[in-house]
């Protein structure tokens, strides 16, 4: 089980705001790693930096041995990293099918795309029923499924998920987390950002805790879930 993603001492700024301060983290092949932290801690900023939407001022990001910090976002997808962004960001004025097709934008293997679309429909049967529907008319849960299906269409080796539980009912959250575990078991490494620390720690192998741009704790997910610091700050007691 080799290291897949290595982030080494990155600093990310929004203008003068120093959002990420010397963060290092690793994701090994086959893992689910979760990054938890309060509002504004910088979780999304880290994912957006990995995806290339933001450039770190200093530090390095290596994916499967290749330096990707500073590469344009549309090139990073091709290396095998895909993101489900915060708030889903589906293309509301396009159909479910078109959203999924866009997920496969970098691919040319027509048969492979078709097969992967079938897999997405197996995983999310509700999307198949709504294939021609405009994505903006889907329910919140269906939109989350679409965003995940769309990200899977690039056949990523590393899937970045930014708060997939946001705004969903508890039952649906459970369903989504089961699907994340399932995606992981079928060979996709997952880096999961969550505010719902309870759920995230229950499915993750390892975890990092982020506070105002710095990693303050890291380790085995079960151990962190049991630790006093994490329980007080993130698990409500």
């Amino acid at each position, binding site marked *: 089980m080799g290291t897949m993603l290595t982030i080494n001492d990155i600093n990310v700024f929004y203008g003068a705001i120093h959002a990420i301060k010397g963060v290092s983290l690793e994701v090994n092949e086959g893992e689910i790693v979760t990054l938890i932290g309060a509002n504004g801690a910088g979780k999304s900023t880290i994912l957006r930096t990995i*995806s*290339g*939407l933001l450039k770190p001022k200093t530090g390095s990001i290596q994916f499967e041995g290749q330096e990707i910090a500073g590469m*344009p*976002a*549309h090139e990073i*997808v*091709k290396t095998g990293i*895909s*993101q489900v*962004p915060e*708030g*889903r*960001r*589906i*293309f*509301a*004025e*396009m159909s479910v099918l*078109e959203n999924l*097709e*866009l*997920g496969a*934008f*970098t691919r040319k293997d027509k048969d492979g795309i078709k097969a992967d679309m079938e897999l997405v429909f197996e995983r999310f049967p509700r999307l198949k029923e709504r294939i021609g529907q405009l*994505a*903006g008319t*889907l*329910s*919140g849960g269906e*939109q989350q499924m679409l965003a995940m299906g*769309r990200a899977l269409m*690039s056949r990523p080796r590393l899937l970045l998920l930014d708060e997939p539980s946001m*705004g969903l009912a508890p039952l649906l959250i459970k369903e989504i987390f089961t699907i994340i575990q399932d995606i992981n078991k079928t060979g996709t490494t997952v880096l999961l950002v969550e505010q719902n620390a309870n759920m995230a720690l229950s499915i993750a192998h390892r975890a990092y805790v982020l506070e105002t741009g710095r990693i303050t704790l890291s380790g085995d997910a079960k151990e962190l879930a049991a630790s006093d610091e994490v329980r007080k700050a993130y698990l409500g007691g």
Partner: protein
Amino acid sequence: MDFLHQFVQQLINGVSLGSIYALIALGYTMIYGIIKLINFAHGDIYMVGAYIGFFAITRAGLSIVPALLISMVVTGILGMIVERLAYKPLRHAPRISVLITAIGVSFFLEYASMYFVSPTPRTFPEVIPSVAFNVGPFIVNGQQMLIMGITLVLMLILTYIVQKTKLGKAMRAASFDVETAQLMGINADRVISFTFCIGSALAAAAGVLVGVYYNSIDPLMGIMPGLKAFVAAVLGGIGILPGAVAGGIILGVIEALVSGFISSTFRDAAAFAILILVLLFKPSGIFGKNTREKV
């Protein structure tokens, strides 16, 4: 009966004039959709298109359709060059800087054209025989047929590109949400460049068709139609392609009716009165929606 007759005749004139506005408005709205820029140089791109068509006919001796195609290709490339040199360096600049740059590009194209082709208006050669068709009691002349026919064909092609091709889907995705489009692996710079190319090519077609229709072109000919097409794009809902077409046709029809029944002096006033009314009562335009995705 006489009133009705004149009304329908003005409708025909209005639709052909409106087709021209629609072609220009499409470029406005596509470019606005993708980089949120009101490209004030768009009317001048249309003027350059008219001149390229003019020289293709007079110097190279081409007939109208090849001249139109050449003008579209060359002007499309010009649009890409303008974007690359003037707007791309300002991708992360405040919007007002880009807007001011667009005004600069507009002046540059107008006065560079004056320098190279002289400010004197040119008489556009007669490229199609002046015939008139009688459709029942109404008259449609050859130029109008040409304008409406070519506009229709170009719109069908554009619809196909935007709806069915991969690049068209990338365009729609990037117009909706450029960051997420990049997460899909879409190269936003390429899509923007392509959008300028298509928008400029459509404007060039409008320029050549206007040359055919009014027989006269000059380096400042783009100012008024540019503004009118902007009104059309706002009327239809800026950023919405069918809106640009509808806005263009509606504007053309209103202008024709105003010139036919009131006086052609009020034509331009009517167009800008529409702009004011739309901005007052429905700023999102006829096709504009206020709702977006659920969160």
